[in-house]
Every structure is written in C-alpha cells, then in structure tokens.
C-alpha cells in the first residue's frame, strides 16, 4: 500500500471505531461521568472536607486529576478490548485480515479508537469536575501528552487482552482483578509520601502511579515521581506492548487458525 492508501485505511478504521462508541454513547460516555461524579461528591466534597489538605491542596483538587486519569485508563482499555474481541467473536476481523492492511496499521487504528474514547471520557469528566472545583492548569502540554500516551498504553493492553481472550468473561478479568486494584493503589486518592518507606518502594512497581502523578503535575505542579521518569516508564511500556501486539498479530495468535 502507498502512504496515501495507508492514511485512507487508517482514517477508515478510526472513523469506524469512533462511530462504534459514539453510537452507544449512553453505554460508553455516560456511565464513567456518573461514576466519577459520585467520586467527586462522596470523596471530594463529603469525606474530602473532613480530610483537609493533601500536598498543600484541597483534597478534592488533589484527587480530581487522578479520577480523570482513572476514567481515561478504564475507558481506553475497555474500548479496544471490547471492540477487538467483538470483531474476533463475530468474525468481522476477517474483513481486515483479507485486505492489504499491514498489521501495524490495524494496531494503530484500534489504538486510535481507544485514545479517542479515553480523550472523550476524560474531557467529559473534566467538564463535570468543574461543577465541584475549579481546575488549575499548571502545564497543558504535560496534561495532553500524558493523557494521550496513557490511553495509548491501555488501548494496547486492551488489544492484547482481546487477542488472548476466548470468551467475553476473559475480557473482564483483567479490568476487574488487575486494572482496578492498580489504579486505586496508583496514588489516585493519596500521596505515596504518606506511606511507610517499604510500601513507597512497592508502589513504585505500579506503572499507573507514574501516569497519575504526571497527569497531576500537569494540573497542580506537584508529583511524587520525577516527570521525566514518568514519561520514560509510559513510553517504555508502550513500546513493549506494541511489540507484543505486533508479534501476536503477525503470528496470527488468537485470530487465525
């Protein structure tokens, strides 16, 4: 395929993926907004007012970036895992496999769909958060780059989960038993400086900690982690997962007999 054809094909996959989640916006955009609104009310206003300040900020201001990031992570992952597994289950992934699309372009198309949903949900949750607090903007570039890179990473993770999945149950195991605990323990609700030293070291194994802190830095200018280190970890994971996804598609694992 020529570069122009590849661009057209890429655009086609992205349009398809965006239309897919946009058509069912009540199932894809509204639920995270409602969930996060409840977090804002309960943890931010009701309980948060009793907690006082965190790293010199009101508690609700401290947790809002982490909650937005939590919505971005879960939704970018959910978008690709359900879309890719659905296309495997209903066999319309074959439409792509019989075409001249290179595998990297298939990955890029699905990941872009995941990023689009992550950004859409992130934006919606951010707008709702304005009802509860005013969002400070310390560094817009860090905010945008972190959210794009993080949603890329979790879109790739969702795609890999979908490749391995053999039933719809298999696509809910990782979000339930891995993603949610790691997100909750990733410094969304607290600063790891509050933890004993041993648990601070353990927390640093969790990649989500780096994303939440980089994102929080973009809003508040504070972070438990060095920003450069956060970017390195996120980009490192993206490269690792991209390599794995490409290998799986090339070998046909889970998609070809």
């Amino acid at each position, binding site marked *: 395929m020529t570069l122009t054809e590849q661009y057209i094909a890429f655009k086609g996959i992205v349009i398809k993926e965006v239309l897919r989640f946009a058509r069912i916006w009540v199932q894809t955009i509204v639920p995270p907004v409602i969930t996060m609104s409840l977090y804002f009310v309960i943890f931010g206003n009701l309980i948060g007012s009793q907690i006082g300040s965190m790293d010199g900020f009101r508690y609700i201001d401290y947790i809002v970036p982490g909650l937005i990031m939590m919505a971005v992570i879960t939704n970018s992952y959910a978008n690709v895992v359900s879309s890719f597994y659905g296309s495997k289950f209903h066999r319309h992934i074959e439409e*792509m496999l019989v075409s001249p699309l290179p595998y990297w372009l298939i990955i890029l198309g699905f990941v872009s769909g995941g990023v689009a949903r992550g950004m859409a949900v992130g934006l919606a949750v951010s707008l709702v958060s304005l009802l509860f607090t005013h969002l400070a903007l310390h560094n817009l570039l860090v905010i945008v780059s972190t959210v794009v890179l993080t949603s890329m990473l979790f879109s790739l993770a969702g795609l890999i989960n979908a490749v391995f999945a053999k039933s719809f149950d298999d696509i809910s195991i990782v979000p339930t038993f891995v993603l949610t605990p790691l997100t909750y323990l990733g410094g969304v609700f607290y600063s790891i400086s509050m933890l004993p030293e041993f648990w601070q070291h353990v927390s640093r194994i969790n990649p989500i900690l780096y994303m939440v802190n980089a994102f929080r830095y973009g809003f508040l200018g504070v972070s438990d982690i060095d920003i450069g280190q956060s970017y390195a970890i996120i980009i490192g994971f993206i490269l690792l997962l991209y390599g794995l996804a490409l290998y799986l598609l090339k070998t046909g694992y889970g998609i070809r007999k």
Partner: protein
Amino acid sequence: MLKSSLMNHALSIENLTKTYANGFQALKGVSLDVGEGDFYALLGPNGAGKSTTIGIISSLITKTSGRIRIFGHDIDEDFSAAKRLLGLVPQEFNFNVFEPVEEILVNQAGYFGIERKAAFARAEQALHQLGLWSKRREQARDLSGGMKRRLMIARALVHQPKLLILDEPTAGVDIEIRRSMWTYLRELNASGTTIILTTHYLEEAESLCRHIGIIDEGELIENSGMKQLLSQLHMETFVLDIREPVQALPPAITDCVRMIDDTTLEADISRGKSINFLFEALSQHRIEVLSMRNKTNRLEQLFVHMLENNAGNTATP
C-alpha cells in the same frame, strides 16, 4: 519481474499442506493452477480441505508449507499486491451485523485504501448490482439470509478484485435468488473476473464452471476441464413417466430398463448410443411416455464415483 507463465495463472498453488494443532492433516500437498478468466469449481465432500485451502489463500488460516501466488504475486513475499487482487466470499457471515449495509462496504473499501467518496460510489454500484440499494441504511442483521449472501458478494467486489473466491455462496438460498446469483456471476466472469467456486450443488458447478478440481481427504484427486470430465461418464440414467400403468416391460428392453412403479421406468443408456430403440420398443407396446429426465446430475454421478474410487484406493486392509 514476474514470469509470463505465472501471469497467466490467476491462482497458482504449489504443494500446499496444513496440519492443525490437534494433528489433523487437512491438506496433504495440494497443487493446482487456475487460469486467468476461468470459472473454476473446487469440489469435495465436507471436511475434504476446500475451506482450508480458501482460508490459506485469503490469509485467514496459516499454512504449514507450500506456496501460493495470485496473478504471480506470492502471498507471503508480496502480500499487499496479492490481496489487492483477491475478493473473498466466505461460507459463514462475517460482517458486523450492527452496521448499516452501506457502511460495511465503505469500510471494506477503506481497508483497501479507497478514498471515502470513491468508496461510497463503489458501494452504490455494488448494491445496485446485487439488488440491495433499497436496504443500504438497514443494519445487516435485519436482512434476510439471501440478502446477507448478496451483501457478502457486494463487499468482496467493492475493491474490484481480479480473482473472486466464493465458498458455498448459494448455501441456504432459494432457487430464484440462486439463479439470479448465477446470472450475475456469469456476467462478472464474462467481464474478466476469474472466479473460483465451492459448492455442494453440483448442478451449479456443472452449469457455471469450465474447469473443476475435486479435493478429497486433503488431496486433489481430479483437476480437469468440465467437458473432459463429463466425457468420462459411460452411462446415464433416465427416468420416464408413462401415461397408462403397465404390468410388465417389453422383453426387448428388459436388459436396460427397470420398473420403479407401474407408471415410472428407469433406463440405463450408454453414452453415444441412440435412445430411439427405447421409444420404438415402448411405442410398439402402446406405452406412451409423458416426460423424461436425468435421474441424477451428470457431475454428481461422476463425483460420487470418484470419491468411492478414492476411498477404495486409500482404504487400509
């Protein structure tokens, strides 16, 4: 630079083998060539290896060994050019049933790098040709079985492939739609598209195809022209419906005619032998023939005979 001999083949398969993870050997070294512009029937009983062959050609199944070229382009070394020339209508529905009909075609065109505006124009053309234009805004799940089959053909043609492979395209389709699909496929072939067809309706293969390959137990047991193949048939059986019931057959024809019931006869006639003697004998005994038809499709007779032979050859004592 492609060799000219390869360019004359729409499809060239060399020593194709496939062993599945469970150890089942689906293909045991299949080699065949399909000429450019041909209408080729790939036949075989269920589980013979037809769909595996098609799956490998279209990259849906990974081969164990062998080589496949589409218009001279190797599907491994030059997969982009090879796939661009190939259209596939699989046996089972494999489109997103929640997408509107037109969108399915436009998306498919997009995967081939066809710009969206041009894709809509091509989708319109294909939907008109297959009688689905009025259904373009409906979700695919709302189409009837016959419409879904036609949608798969339209989708396979939206990038205008030079080689179209149809895996049982008329399965479960009523006779009227089947015949309209035959007409369409004949026109498509006449316009230059090479077509490979698998079907269990042997009448369909005999009516449409010029060449035929028969796969059985993972091996190609026949590969020849339809006329040459049918010429191997030594005997044809005809069924005759007669007006008045008869109690016994005229002695002159008892060696080749049987009574099925008192108004139905069956006659075995050697190929090339005149059938007039039969009518003369029946007329002499005032037996009036109302109608006559082939008992079985000619290709079907041969097909069954070849499979029986193959089973005899491969059976272990």
